């Protein structure tokens, strides 16, 4: 199965990359882009056909390795 993990900086954490992108976009004339937050995106190929197992595995990996809980939160999608 495949799991997708989205890791984003918590709302309370300043995102310098996102800020830079917004500024750049606005200077290019994209006034309608009000805010940008940049995160990481992982596609995991998992050797399992059980959805529950895949979800558990992805969550464990995200918790332990892919995200740093001090600054980041994550979301998982499995299909």
């Amino acid at each position: 199965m495949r799991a997708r993990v989205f890791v984003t900086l918590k709302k309370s954490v300043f995102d310098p990359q996102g800020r830079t992108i917004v500024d750049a976009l606005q200077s290019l004339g994209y006034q309608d882009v009000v805010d940008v937050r940049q995160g990481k995106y992982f596609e995991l190929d998992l050797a399992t056909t059980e959805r529950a197992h895949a979800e558990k595995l992805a969550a464990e990996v995200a918790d332990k390795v892919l995200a740093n809980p001090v600054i980041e939160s994550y979301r998982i999608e499995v299909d």
Partner: protein
Amino acid sequence: MRFGIVVFPGSNCDEDALYAARDVFGQDAEYLWHKDADLKGADVLILPGGFAHGDYLRTGAMARFSPIMAPVRAFAERGGPVLGICNGFQILLEAGLLPGAMLRNRGLKYRCEHVYLRVEQTDTPFTSAATAGQVLKMPIGHGEGNYFAPPEMLKTIEANHQVVLRYTDPQGRVDEAWSPNGSVNAIAALCNDARNVVGMMPHPERACEALLGGVDGRVIFDSIVRSPKGFALQGIGRRLQPSQTA
């Protein structure tokens, strides 16, 4: 004094740390390979700079799983002096041996240059030879040195006097314009609650010889080297632990 320099795959300031300890300060020093679980009798540990495991995910994120980190943690818990420099600092954060996390530099670029630092605390094994308020000039070289701690954590850190160095102007005044990376409260170095584990973004090992353009990094090594053997182990940190002073 016997230095143990922890080498992760991707460490690249390991030789520099060894050279400083052994050749500049005349101490025993040995590499500790990350797959080993033996600290080879080290009295003090340095986690050097570099890009452990490539730092592709987050700086320090993978290194904390290395086998050597278990004995490092045990050593730290016993009060042993541990210094994380640059990537070493990042690893200590990821490993939870120090509080907080690193973000990318405010300007998003890697920066290598000299910065000014004010010594905030002298009761750590790595700043005991310095004087409070002293201004040091030392090189940095990092892309992710923008230290962050959530407000509550930050409050505790400040209340416990865990900030060891801050980025300042040449006169020792904290000034946003002189911060190379946007760290919260201009934090450049930090210690743990017990004060025996210190992480710093600047590179003291790059500032120990006049030929390299400055010797302000010596005070970091002098602090640990001059303390009588074993003193650091049971000494400074323990004495000042809040629980023990209370």
